[in-house]
């Protein structure tokens, strides 16, 4: 990939034979991936479209069919394709075109109220629990003492459910069709319009699994497909940083010295950085300061203390949540996918690996409450690290959520687990119910990468997740490779990543929020740069890397569609300084970025093969 090409020659693409140049400068564009093309047309792949050469004629035919249908139908006929249809993964041209064709020519045998639906309804009746009851249980892994709910605890009040900005999630987010929110009346009204719109939803939201169509994803070496690979390093400079380039170079020189164990030089450079940083303004100065401090810790072997007091780290987390849209985007997009997966399910169970203050769940519960046909019974199992004081943090979170559930008339059950690592988890602890009875979604926001610090941990967790037989697994992770084997590479990647993050915070209105967020991120920087081995938990990896891990572990992608995209965009528009933020669709995943630099990615997954989800 790192080759200097001086020659250019036309690609001997079989599909282009008709128009192939026969004269003149016959030069070939030397694509390194020629041998890895998995049958894909390489020229289109580089432009973001995955079409097998052997499928080209068929795709062309679909285009022609669509053109014809669109000409024959009134304007209204296609406008709904734009405004109401949910689109998925536009890179997969064949499937995308097919889904639109079936939109315009719905198959006649489709029955949204098929046997499966009625059977489920019959089962549910026997499990029906009196409305408005919520049960609350906590199993504290380390400490079986229960604490009574503390009233007036400041941390939680800042995230009080009534303050949760549901306006940020417009009504349409709750369902994917353009119907008005129904009343809380749980009796489902199957008017003709409901049937029609639900049918439309179903025909587009359930595309054939891409894994049925596509070969397994190419190995990361296929750099020339134009999709970000592990070795893509996007850099965005804000003009103020032009002057800070010298500072960046000094930081990198210092990191290089550290890498080469030239500690005298490194020490000298770290001091120099301190001086250079002072003359900078804004984000650059702060980022440089954090990185310099982390380098100093590494040089002097003065490693960061044990993880912070839990309540303080909660405070930081909260401010980060308020200041910038990253966490909100993560929660929002994950919830959207979970909502879709829970369509039609009467009992649902969310297993949250990233419970924290439970901020993700009120919005989902609200959306479920407003669902056509009434809310399902909602069970939540949350995981979190142990607290350093004696407070039963997870219990408190659960109580708050239970109160909220009661207010909105959602049957609610809760269980909290305290564990040092997700790898300590076993499926047997979870009281899992049969999947025909209860649909499970597993959710992880910025947690999975921590497991990469310990060999075998991630595989153990994947295997446990499979035993949960989830409908859906939602994963949100930082879009960066901070886990490479070479220290200098990790340093450089994270320097650019956090520079961009800090830059995005500059526009924040509240300076206290900003400072707290910077401290929050600063701790991550310190971990990436100064720690090693099991202590280095901020082992972020890119989407491509996670895709490989997940597909190897037996998961297949579930695509997030244009509805989630649109609503995420609307969410971002609500943030001051929202101009720089952007959502991008990448093969069914959604990425949030700042000035075109993707920073976090939400992806959704399901079991490739449900029947073989046995423990390994």
């Amino acid at each position, binding site marked *: 990939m790192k080759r*200097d090409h001086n020659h250019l020659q036309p690609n001997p693409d079989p599909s282009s034979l008709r*128009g*192939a140049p026969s004269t003149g400068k016959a030069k070939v564009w030397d694509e390194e991936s020629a041998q890895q093309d998995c049958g894909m047309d390489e020229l289109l792949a580089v432009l973001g479209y995955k*079409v097998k050469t052997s499928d080209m004629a068929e795709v062309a035919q679909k285009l022609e069919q669509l053109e014809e249908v669109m000409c024959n139908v009134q304007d209204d006929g296609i*406008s709904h394709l734009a405004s109401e249809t949910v689109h998925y993964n536009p890179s997969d041209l064949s499937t995308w075109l097919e889904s639109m064709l079936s939109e315009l020519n719905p198959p006649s045998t489709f029955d949204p109220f098929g046997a499966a639906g009625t059977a489920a309804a019959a089962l549910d009746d026997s499990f029906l629990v009196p409305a408005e009851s919520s049960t609350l249980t906590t199993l504290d892994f380390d400490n079986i003492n229960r604490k009574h709910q503390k009233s007036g605890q400041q941390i939680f009040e800042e995230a009080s459910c009534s303050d949760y900005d549901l306006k940020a999630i417009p009504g349409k987010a709750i369902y994917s069709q353009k119907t008005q929110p129904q009343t809380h009346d749980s009796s489902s009204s199957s008017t003709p319009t409901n049937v029609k719109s639900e049918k439309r939803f179903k025909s587009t939201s359930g595309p054939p699994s891409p894994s049925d169509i596509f070969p397994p994803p190419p190995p990361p070496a296929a750099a020339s497909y*134009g999709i970000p690979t592990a070795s893509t390093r996007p*850099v965005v400079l804000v*003009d103020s940083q032009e002057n800070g380039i010298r500072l960046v170079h000094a930081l990198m020189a210092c990191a290089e010295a550290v890498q080469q164990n030239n500690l005298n030089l490194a020490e000298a450079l770290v001091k120099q950085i301190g001086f250079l940083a002072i003359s900078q303004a804004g984000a650059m100065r702060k980022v440089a300061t954090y990185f310099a401090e982390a380098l100093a810790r590494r040089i002097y072997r003065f490693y960061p203390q044990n993880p912070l007091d839990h309540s303080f780290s909660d405070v930081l987390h909260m401010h980060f949540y308020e200041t910038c849209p990253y966490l909100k985007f993560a929660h929002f997009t994950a919830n959207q996918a979970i909502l879709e997966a829970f369509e039609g399910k009467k009992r649902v169970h969310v297993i949250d690996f990233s419970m924290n203050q439970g901020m993700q769940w009120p919005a989902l519960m609200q959306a479920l409450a407003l669902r056509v046909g009434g809310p399902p019974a909602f069970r939540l199992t949350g995981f979190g690290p142990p607290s350093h004081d004696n407070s039963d943090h997870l219990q408190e979170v659960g109580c708050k959520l239970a109160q909220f559930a009661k207010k909105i008339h959602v049957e609610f059950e809760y269980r909290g687990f305290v564990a040092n690592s997700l790898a300590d988890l076993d499926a047997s602890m979870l009281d899992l119910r049969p999947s025909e009875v209860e649909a499970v979604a597993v959710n992880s926001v910025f947690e999975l990468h921590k497991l990469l610090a310990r060999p075998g941990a991630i595989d153990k967790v994947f295997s446990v997740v499979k035993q949960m037989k989830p409908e859906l697994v939602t994963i949100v992770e930082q879009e960066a490779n901070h886990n490479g084997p070479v220290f200098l590479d990790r340093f450089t990647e994270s320097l650019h990543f956090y520079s961009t993050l800090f830059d995005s915070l500059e526009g924040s209105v509240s300076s206290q929020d900003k400072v707290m967020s910077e401290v929050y991120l600063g701790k991550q920087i310190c971990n990436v740069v100064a720690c090693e081995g099991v202590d280095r938990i901020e082992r972020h990896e890119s989407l491509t890397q996670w895709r490989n891990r997940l597909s190897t572990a037996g998961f297949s992608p579930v695509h997030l569609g244009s509805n989630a995209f649109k609503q995420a965009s609307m969410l971002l528009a609500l943030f001051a300084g929202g101009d720089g933020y952007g959502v991008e669709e990448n093969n069914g995943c959604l990425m949030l970025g700042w000035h075109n630099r993707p920073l976090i990615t939400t992806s959704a997954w399901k079991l490739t093969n449900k029947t073989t989800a046995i423990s390994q």
Partner: protein
Amino acid sequence: MAGSNEVNLNESKRVVPLNTWVLISNFKLSYNLQRRPDGTFNRDLSEFLDRRVPANINPVDGVFSFDHVDGATGLLNRVYQPSPKNEAQWGIVDLEKPLSTTEVVPVIVFFHGGSFTHSSANSAIYDTFCRRLVNICKAVVVSVNYRRSPEHRYPCAYDDGWAALKWVKSRTWLQSGKDSKVHVYLAGDSSGGNIAHHVAVRAAEADVEVLGNILLHPMFGGQMRTESEKRLDGKYFVTLHDRDWYWRAYLPEGEDRDHPACNPFGPRGRTLEGLKFPKSLVVVAGLDLIQDWQLAYVEGLKKSGQEVKLLFLEKATIGFYFLPNNDHFYRLMEEMNNFVHSNC
């Protein structure tokens, strides 16, 4: 109606390779979905469908890129450069040294197409095109992420283009040659070509030196219907109907297509006589329905006493340069390469 469409589809399929036909037809289809009959635009759907790629400071096939944002305006430029000969310098943004102190390295300020409405600097089709340009022309390319219509009408795109030009001219790290200056060319396809023209006019009036303009089937028009528009309407991916839509979305409300932004040498246009306007390379695709306007533009430049070379590619359709699978692509690259190096 359906019958005539069948004829149209078959014709366009005959003149381009199949994968090109698929690519451009897909754009046509998805753009149809995005434009609303009432003149509004489904921006969310457009952003969702657009295939994007991030910048990459690590060289790929001899080219690396990074984004630059003007903090005050939010204007983003994506800079593409040839990878340094010395591998030790890979992955590092150097904003201190000039490109060269001995040789001239052309800097091409590129305005992507999309009829003023679609695409971005980081759209995969344009990112790929710019990378190819860097390699073939041994140039630095700066792709401007100008504001688009209908949210931002005339003259926003020109303003952004002008701001980008000024930014490029003032970067010491883009200087080259013994005369230590930034050797700038303006280039663009479709609406980008139109922007290049108008930015060049502004530059000439402000005495800012631009060494050349490259207009790739530039987007021009006018109120009257020309012969080529009537003959080729709907035949090769593009219709008059959509052209009209995009002009209505870009031009100030209530204006018609004789507005000088659209028709620079038309009844409301002006001569460029006496202006120190850069030499131009105008590339016209023989199957592009607006070629008469592009040819009229060439005539207009000539009448103004300006230097212009016309590259007429008889059998080319719009978008021929997205895939390097046809003769026209290589012809274009050769001409562009010569154009940006002919001054040395």
